Structure formats: C-alpha cells, structure tokens
C-alpha cells in the first residue's frame, strides 16, 4: 500500500513518471517545470527507469520527438510550462490529430508579455481547443493521482488522445505537501502495458508499410476530424470509469468535478486548481454563518463535462465563475462562456457572473474570495446583476 511522504508537485510528477516508467521522455527545461525533467534525468542516470531520455533543443522538438516515439508504439511523456507550451502549439494539434496518447505534465504559468514566471492558467487555456484531454489538480496529491490516471485515459482504445495534467506553478510545483504515494507495483499494475497500436516500428519489423501523417484533403479530412471529435466524446465515458477504478483500488475517487457543498446551495463559485483549497475554507466560514454557499471545482476541462456542470449548477440562484485567465475578447473568460452555454437550455438557471483573478501569480487570499461571495450575496438579495465580469485583487 501507499506511503505518506512530503513532496512538491514537481517532485510528485517526477515520482509518478518514474513509477510509470515510460519508454521515451523528450523534454526541455522551463521555469517552473524544470525540476520535473531534472529529477527524471537523475532517475535515468541512476538506472531507475528503462526510459530513453531525449534532452531536446526546444519544446517544439520535445513534442516532435514525442510524436515520433509515440507513433513508434512507445509510451511517451514530457513536461513543460507557459512559453514552452506555446512553442509546442503547432505540434499539440498534430499529436492529437495523429491520435497519439502522449502524456504531458504541465506546470501552469502565465504567458509573456510582460514576462512573468508565476501561475495563471493562460498557457493551458490557450491550448484548450487543440484536441488534448486536460486535467487540473488542486493539490500535490491530485497532481500525482491525475498523472497516473492520465496514462490509462489517453491509451484507452476508444480514446487514443494525448492528455495534459496540470498543476499550479510555484503554488503547487514548489510547495511541499504531504501525499500518499502508491507502491511501484501498484502503479505498474494500474497503468499496465500500453495496448498495442499500429506503429512505425511494428510496421518495419513485420514489413507491412504504414504511412502516418498523409496529406488529407477535402475528401477525407472532415471524416478524420469527426472521428477525433468522437474520441473526445468517448473520453467523457472513460474518464469517470478510470477515476472509479482508481478509487476502488486506492481509496481516492475522481470524477470530472468536485461537488463541495453544492447540493443545497443558493450561491456558489466555480474554480479550477489550487484556489479551490482556499475557497473551500471561505465556503465553510459562510456555512457557519448560515449562508448556503457551495463550490464546484473543475478537474477535467477537456472534454468539457457540460452535463455534470449544468446539473450541479442549475438549481443555484447565483454562481460566480472564477478564472485565472483573461479571455482578451472584450467580454468574459473562456470558462464563463462555456458554463453559460451549457446552462442556456434550462429555463430556470442561475445568474452567472465572472471573476478574473490571480493573473501572473497575484496571490488570492481568503478576503478576495469573501469579496466574491459578497458580490454573489448582493445579487442574490437584490436580484440585480450589475456586471458581467469583475477583476479581483487588481489595482485599477
């Protein structure tokens, strides 16, 4: 069984990678994700993994090498953050379009400019439509658990999509927390051997030519994209199955979202990542004052679990959607628009308001979340929605 240890999220990522023991890791250093590859390179140097480690010259080549290795039938992992993820952009779409189950540990950091190394979700939210599964983590334990489950989700024959697992830069990546680490045997048994796929090396050995990445014009491209979209829908079925299997084996259950005191709530917030921990404390304080507050934490953002989200939120009166991203669309953040859209079909639905917070690692405090709930309470009491979006914790 597992043992309790203290680790940062970067260490937990690296430890999970050691236990998964991938065939190939191709990675490039970037703050605040560098430690993952540093620690992993040491595992390679010490012979603790079978992995062929490719110290590539850029993130673009990291993802390109991952694509080559995964198309060869290997189990492949990498890690990055921010500008590194942005530099991979072109290859992210190609990895998912080629249906390669690559696993990527991502430490969320904002995007330049201005350059800043701290946490917000701009990097991975920018990559939200590139065909990757996206799983976010609240703490170090979830970072570790999500990484292990990601392998099974991505490699499932009905899915075969790449998957990125997120943790918050510095807040989690460099924060020591206690977590339960599974034994190597438990992880290896859980992830198993990757299901066999058609691949380049198999093709070479069996002398059966295969062409991957052909030019796909007007007469076939659409069908292939339609299949890819279906794979993302299939992931909606597979993710909770894997989460339940993980829970049955190890006691920690995972779904698309976490429902924190929403069932009878009048007002609530939606949040992603480490801020959920702080926000739960605020919910508890409000509950003590007799206010029916709740919280919805989104773990899986791609595929977008619209059924779960709208069913959990539809009976609330006011919902504040907190987001560590500025949409730069002159209107709202991405999550706000998607949650709005998922609720639109219901005649009775909550008032939604949007809060953008914590850009570039700006600290989010108890008082900030209390301020958000005060706005929600005011709307709840007056029935008046006087704004769509408010910025929290910024000088303006």
């Amino acid at each position, binding site marked *: 069984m597992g043992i309790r240890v203290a680790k940062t999220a970067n260490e937990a990522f690296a430890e999970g990678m050691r236990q998964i023991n991938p065939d190939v890791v191709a990675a490039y250093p970037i703050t605040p994700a560098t430690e993952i590859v540093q620690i992993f390179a040491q595992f390679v140097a010490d012979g603790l993994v*079978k992995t062929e480690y490719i110290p590539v010259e850029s993130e673009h080549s990291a993802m*390109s*090498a991952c694509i080559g290795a995964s198309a060869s039938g290997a189990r492949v992992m990498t890690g990055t953050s921010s500008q590194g993820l942005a530099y991979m952009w072109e290859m992210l779409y190609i990895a998912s379009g080629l249906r390669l189950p690559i696993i990527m540990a991502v430490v969320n950091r904002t995007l330049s400019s201005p350059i800043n190394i701290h946490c917000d979700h701009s990097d991975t939210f920018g990559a939200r439509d590139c065909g990757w599964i996206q799983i976010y983590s609240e703490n170090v334990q979830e970072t570790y658990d999500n990484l292990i489950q990601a392998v099974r989700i991505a490699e499932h024959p009905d899915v075969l999509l790449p998957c990125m697992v997120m943790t918050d830069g510095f807040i989690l990546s460099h924060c020591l927390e206690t977590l339960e680490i599974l034994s190597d045997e438990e992880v290896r048994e859980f992830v198993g051997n990757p299901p066999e796929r058609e691949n380049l090396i198999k093709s070479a050995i069996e002398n059966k030519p295969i062409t991957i990445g052909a030019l796909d014009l007007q007469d076939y491209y659409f069908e292939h994209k339609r299949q890819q979209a279906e794979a993302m829908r299939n992931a909606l079925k597979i993710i909770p199955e894997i989460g339940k299997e993980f829970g049955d084996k190890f006691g920690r259950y995972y779904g698309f979202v976490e429902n924190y005191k929403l069932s009878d709530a009048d007002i609530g917030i939606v949040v992603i990542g480490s801020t959920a921990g702080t926000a739960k404390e605020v919910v508890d304080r409000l509950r003590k004052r007799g206010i029916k507050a709740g919280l919805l934490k989104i773990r899986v953002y791609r595929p977008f679990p619209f059924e779960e989200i709208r069913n959990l939120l539809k009976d609330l009166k006011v919902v504040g959607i907190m987001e560590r991203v500025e949409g730069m669309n002159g209107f709202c953040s991405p999550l706000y628009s998607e949650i709005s859209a998922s609720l639109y079909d219901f005649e009775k639905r909550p008032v939604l308001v949007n809060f953008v917070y914590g850009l570039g690692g700006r600290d989010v405090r108890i008082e900030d979340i209390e301020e958000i709930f005060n706005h929600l309470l005011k709307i709840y009491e007056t029935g008046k929605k006087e704004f769509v979006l408010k910025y929290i914790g910024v000088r303006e």
Partner: protein
Amino acid sequence: MASIKELAKRDSRFVSGHRLCAGCGAGIIMRHVLLAIDKPVIATCATGCVEVASTIFPYSSWKIPWIHSAFENSAATISGIESAYKVFRREGKIDKDIVFVAFGGDGGTYDIGLQALSGAAERGHNVLYVCYNNEAYMNTGIQRSGATPKYAYTTTSPVGKVIPGKLQWKKNLPEIMVAHGIPYVATAIPGRWNDLVNKVEKAVKIDRFKFIEVLSPCRLGWPHEPELTMEISRIAVETCIWPLYEVIEGKYRLTYKPKEKKPVSEWFKLQGRFRHLLLPENASLLEEIQKEVDRRWEELLKKCET
C-alpha cells in the same frame, strides 16, 4: 557497393503513382536513397513537395513505415523514433536492425528546420538526414530560401528594375554540419546514381548522425526542360557550383573531379531563374559569381589535400 544489377533487383521503396512533376529530381533521390539501404527503414519527411505529392490520402508512394508531422521537425521526429527503437531493443522486444532516415527539402533543412537538425546532430542519434535541395520553397510556389543561390529569381526575390534577384549568398550547410563534428557529411546529385548510392551505403554503416545533401533539380522553379534533370545536375558538378565530396570524421575527399571546369554560364543558361545574368548589362554579376565559385572550389580542393 551494390551494382546497378543488384539495385534493379531490389523492390523499389518509393513507387510510382505520386504527383511529383515530370522531371522532378526529388522522386529520383527518394527512390535511390531507399534502394541503397538493404535493411528495414523508417523515414520521416518534412512538409514540402515530396510529402504533399507522395501521400495524398488514401494513397501513398512509400513502401516503408513513413511519417510526416510538420515542416521544421523531420530531425526531431526521427529522434523520437530512433529513441523508441533503442529502448525496445534494450528491452529485448525487437532484435532487427532498422535504419532511420529523415528527409527534408532545403526550406525544412536550411531555414525553419535548422534548429531541429542541429539538435539531433548534436545529440548524435543514429540517423541519416537527407536534404533534397531544390534551392527554394518550391512547394509554396518558388520563394527564396537560405539555399537559394545569389541573383536567382524567385517570387520573393524577383528580378526587378533595381534589384537583380536574390542579393545574398546561400548558406554553406555541409560546412555547418561538418562543424557539428558528425562522422559523415556528403553532397550528391541524382545524375550520378553510383556516387549517391555509395554515399548512402557508407553513411548507414556509421552508428551516429549522418548528413547527405542532394541537389534536386526543379523543372518548375528553376525552371528547366524536364528531360534535362539528370544532365543539369551533372552540369552543376562540372561547373563546380555543386562539388561532389564527402567528409568522413572531419577528413575531406572529392568523390568526383571534373576533367575540365566549365564556366558557370553553362549552368545558368539552362535555367530561367538566371536568364538575366546572361544579359550584357549584367556581365559584372556573372563575373562576381564565377569568382566566388572559383574561390570556394579552391578552398575545397585545399581541404581535400590536407
């Protein structure tokens, strides 16, 4: 070296049905490079003429495992494949030798793919990189690249009233690759198949990163008469514009020396992109190129002597 009889008996691994232009040098290069390898091969290909013309889904001209992922990353993609092979081999999952070949045009090699190429060379993957150099971005319609010769017409270095085509010398990519300290660098042309096959055979026997650059006549972009493909590549050698040499562990060797060096105008006169250089008012430009070709040739001869 395999004789032409032996080569003729081998199954072609780049087969007909592709949509490359009549007279395209690249298809010949692909076919010869792959024929020269008598082991299982896995190849990557950068975006470009060869990729778009040979793999229009659901058809493929490649009778080998082949992958295209993007433009600038043929060398990075093959790094991943070769690494997967290494771990499978180490784990005892496979025991067959496989040869890894990355193809790229000059755009995907000299320009946008230079970083990935340099990285893969520095890491020393057991890969043969073959650049088919048609001296411009031909797939997108003849735009200048870092491999386009000085004063050549392209659609982004047009010949105008005040500018006589591309104003810059091309990069010396074989030298850049030699500077990486890789064990094998060579130049070749489709018009000397035995030289090309010999070089590929030599290269794949070496267990590290190898680089061969093949001049690829482009009847559309240079343009030239399609039946002149082989001949025109030989004239590039005879004029010393494209010397045939190899560099083994840093040691230079000419693999063919023209009996009588021809003037560069012999090469220019067969191609539309240089037509303006043969006009009397551009005699000084022609002379400038001749001088530079002479200088580089002498420099190469010196390197081969030592």
